[in-house]
């Protein structure tokens, strides 16, 4: 009964590593706050003024933003759909169990990483420069954005499927496309739909601010009312966006639960 506990080293006993890393983090936070001037120039007066003016929304403005809100949703729908259509062949080419050639897969995946590295706002700015101000720019930005996101979600879904049916289809003499149609797609269809809805949800949210850059939709009105100091109208725009996002989230969650 005389077992002695093994001796702990000094550094282990006093948690030197943990304490030092904790201190380092605190220093980084303080330094970052100082350098960005996070505490300077914040006017509570202005904040209250803005808030109070927003408390009295100009409800007559609702009729004016119904069309741009609809346009926002339509942009998200078209962008997500186009992005998904382009993503399907790319996700198949990026999946380890479909394309055995490491180099081809590597090139495709590198390309997809490049696409995903572009934030949606940057894409919107680029498309406004290419196709001009209007919803077409938003659709373009959302197409590329959804393409990058969906291809990754899709190829990861494809990689989780049971390879047995593919082997069975190979043994009956099916060609590559027949194997995909009969053995791969039926296994991932529900996941595809679920990811499509999820991306749509994200795109509706994203497309509300794309208008800020001139890419169509309700974001334009957000910009206009703010620069005219019509905070009563800004409040209406924000509430409208809120309602749309909540509805789309709710519907999408319901549908995705049904698919699971």
């Amino acid at each position, binding site marked *: 009964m005389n077992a002695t506990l093994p001796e702990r080293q000094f550094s282990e006993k006093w948690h030197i590593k943990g304490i030092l890393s904790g201190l380092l983090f605190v220093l980084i936070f303080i330094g970052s706050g100082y350098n960005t001037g996070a505490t300077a120039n914040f006017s509570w007066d202005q904040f209250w003024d803005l808030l109070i003016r927003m408390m009295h929304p100009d409800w007559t403005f609702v009729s004016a933003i119904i069309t741009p809100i609809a346009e926002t949703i339509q942009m998200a729908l078209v962008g997500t759909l186009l992005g998904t259509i382009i993503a399907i062949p790319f996700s198949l080419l990026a999946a380890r169990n479909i394309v055995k050639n490491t180099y081809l897969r590597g090139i495709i995946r590198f390309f997809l990483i490049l696409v995903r590295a572009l934030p949606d706002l940057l894409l919107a700015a680029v498309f406004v420069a290419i196709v001009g101000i209007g919803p077409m720019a938003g659709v373009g930005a959302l197409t590329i954005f959804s393409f990058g996101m969906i291809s990754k979600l899709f190829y990861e879904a494809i990689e989780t499927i049971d390879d047995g049916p593919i082997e069975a289809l190979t043994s009956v*003499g099916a060609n590559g496309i027949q194997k995909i149609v009969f053995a791969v797609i039926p296994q991932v269809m529900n996941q595809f739909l679920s990811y499509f809805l999820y991306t749509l949800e994200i795109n509706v949210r994203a497309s509300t601010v794309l208008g800020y850059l001139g890419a169509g939709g309700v974001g334009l009105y957000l910009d206009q009312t703010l620069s005219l100091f019509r905070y009563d109208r800004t409040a209406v725009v924000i509430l409208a966006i809120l309602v749309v996002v909540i509805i789309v989230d709710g519907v999408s969650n319901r549908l995705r639960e049904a698919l699971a």
Partner: protein
Amino acid sequence: MSSGVGTIKINDVSKIYPNGTVGLDHINLDIQSGEFVVIVGLSGAGKSTLLRAINRLHDVSAGEILLDGVDITKAKGKELRQQRRNIAMIFQNFNLVKRATVARNVLAGRVGYYSTFRSTFGLFSKEDKEKAAANLERVNMLDKYYTRADELSGGQQQRVAIARSMMQSPNVVLADEPIASLDPKTTKMVMDDLQHLNDMGMTVVVNLHSVELAMAYATRIVGLRDGQLVYDKPIAEVSADDFDGIYAETRDKE
């Protein structure tokens, strides 16, 4: 009942995996039309590798495999697919698409006869749909035509898989441990289904672990050990003691 087609001639076939493991070691085997061959041996003896070499789910390192005189080890593209079309395969895990209906799973067995376009859009001919129904009838599964495959029991799934393989109108049926995941009663049904295919003139090659089943159904028993063919006798000459040699523990490596 032999129809003359469905012969398999394996000439000096070896398979060495990239990591140096010997899967098959100079196998020679001549299977006649209409035989019911059971391959026995320990796990890892190469039974599965040999079976999968016959329809080229696995490539071999050396040797040739002639199916009715045509070497499948060198076939490419469409030619390979057409050779595979004549060889049905039944798997231990059934390999059905679980989320698809029984009907679609069975029709998938016929896609080798269709163009990419027609199969993609599910444009199967009336004859083939009737053929699917007839094949399901034969394995007593017609009432499950519109059922999703994941709602079926293991034995039922295997019978659907057999109906699917019949859609190929094959000359050869390969079965890789078809009953390993089944209970004794469904085991008998599945083995009887294979027997029935054999009676219809198809050459049947089955990997099995069960000595009793091998004795009950085979017309010829082949034994593999460490990738080598160590036993090959028609059923009339087989005695139960022979299996001791096939199932003997692995040779010393060095």
